[in-house]
């Protein structure tokens, strides 16, 4: 069995966003990058499946994008993945089809029974690479999964919806997108970080596809207008209720 995990290098969650001079992109100076948090659940889930199966399944981590994403692949290797594939190239921001077609090409070549990804990448929050990937491969897809069981060539997954979850069964190969709650990602130990440096990481140039979305602009959100402290302690409660009722008219 082979499990592929698709991961993405993203600005970390502490990033203070500044807009670059082109008015269309993030000012890159001063930004530090990390593995997208949901992708950590995907890596962890692959490792759990591997561990439960006595270590036989191979876990391959793939990432499409700039060359520096090798750092994030190494992080996944340090967690325990077996090898990495980096598809190097400049991908247009937020255009899922380009990234997905690169990943799909590599996955076809690689062959796998399962592909795990995060439910979304926390930079473009685009929500669609997994669906493009499943479509390009002809695989089944379950998104936003908080529980996963594999049995007899099938995946039984809990998928989060408003107010509860759906229990969905699909045949493998499948693309599964991971949500917080699925597991608790492990920390890489120092010896494993050292070992990861020697694990194979193959680099290939990605074939670019025609983008389907064009970026027209990137801007900071309109600032909220300054608020006010209505008072101190419990005696401020009536003032707050009055303000919400009469001024803001939300209650």
């Amino acid at each position: 069995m082979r499990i592929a995990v698709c991961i993405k290098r993203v600005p970390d969650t502490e990033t203070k966003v500044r807009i670059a001079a082109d008015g269309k992109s993030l000012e890159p100076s001063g930004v530090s990058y990390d593995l997208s948090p949901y992708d950590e659940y995907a890596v962890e889930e692959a490792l759990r499946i591997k561990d439960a199966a006595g270590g036989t399944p191979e876990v391959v981590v793939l990432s499409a994008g700039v060359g520096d994403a090798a750092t994030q692949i190494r992080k996944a290797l340090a967690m325990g993945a077996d090898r990495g594939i980096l598809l190097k190239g400049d991908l247009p921001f937020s255009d899922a089809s380009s990234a997905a077609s690169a990943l799909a090409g590599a996955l076809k070549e690689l062959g796998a029974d399962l592909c795990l990804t995060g439910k979304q990448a926390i930079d473009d929050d685009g929500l669609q690479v997994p669906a493009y990937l499943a479509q390009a491969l002809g695989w089944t897809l379950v998104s936003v999964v908080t529980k996963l069981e594999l049995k007899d060539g099938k995946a039984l997954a809990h998928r989060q919806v408003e107010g509860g979850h759906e229990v969905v069964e699909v045949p493998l190969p499948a693309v599964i997108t991971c949500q917080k709650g699925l597991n608790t990602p492990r920390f890489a130990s120092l010896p494993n970080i050292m070992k990861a440096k020697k694990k194979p990481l193959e680099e290939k140039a990605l074939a670019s596809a025609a983008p389907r979305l064009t970026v027209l602009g990137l801007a900071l959100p309109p600032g909220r207008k300054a608020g006010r402290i209505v008072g101190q302690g419990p005696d401020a409660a009536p003032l707050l209720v009055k303000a919400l009722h009469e001024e803001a008219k939300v209650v």
Partner: protein
Amino acid sequence: MPKILAFVEQRGGVLKRTAGEVLGAARRLADGGGSGEVVAVLIGHDIAATLGAALGPLGADRVRALQHPSLAPYSGEAYARLLAAEAALAKPDLVLFPASAMGKDLAPRVAAVLGVGLASDCTALEAGAGGSGFAATRPVYAGKAQLKVGFAASPAMASLRPNVFTAPSAQPGRSAVVEAVTSDPGALRDAVQSLVLAASAKVDLTEADIVVTGGRGMKGPEHWGLIEGLAAALGAATGASRAVVDAGWRPHAEQVGQTGKTVSPSLYIACGVSGAIQHLAGMSSSRVIVAINKDPDAPIFKVADYGIVGDAFEVLPRLTEEFKKLKG
């Protein structure tokens, strides 16, 4: 004269509130481009008669109700297949979805089948530049920036963040032609075996009009009665910060923030929440924000419209009482 296909969500034969939001946005864009057409697509079992008539007053000109027993539970594969076929038939300029759990699963599948671009979780949509004549604005970097995109080809596709687009009030005089269509989706690989809803009949966070959130300042799960009491007085959903979820006080489904849910209710009340950048990412598009915190320098006050500096344990009971009085 744009033609717009609007996917209207129903679950268990009940129309979701987002139906009005999606149809309202579709109507506005259709009219803005000069008497365009809005086609609502409903998918399910036995829904044409019960739900079809409600969509005209909300803005639809035509309703396509695709019905089959196997469509009663949601199936991403089936719904995507049928919607892609509808789009191929109607040749719309724009296809709209709600960015609900269902819409977020479905829209990318349809975009992938059609091979077109999709703008997810949009907060604004306008006719304008770009190949397809539409431009969409959507939060990126967890709401720290807004990206405006155009579409390279037609149809343009967008899912709309719930609670952001205002649903126009229903116009009883408007009616739509309802076409009930028997649509056998064929063999399916994804079978939803069951839908398990949380025991409480509480409102879901992402659908709620008012959200009351507790943070680490609430000191422990045994104090959640204060949060729930206030929420009950307001008919609100309850949320939690990540610190609270990580401590195991509340389930992850209640987490608001960058690695939790994104909410944009009309009123968000944060109690004992410091306002970390990752928390703000999930709630800063709320219409009105209230913060209750004992630390006057807590960052949450920077985004709050109204604040009370004080001990939540003293403020919340009093506040709940005052809201009860108001609701009388």
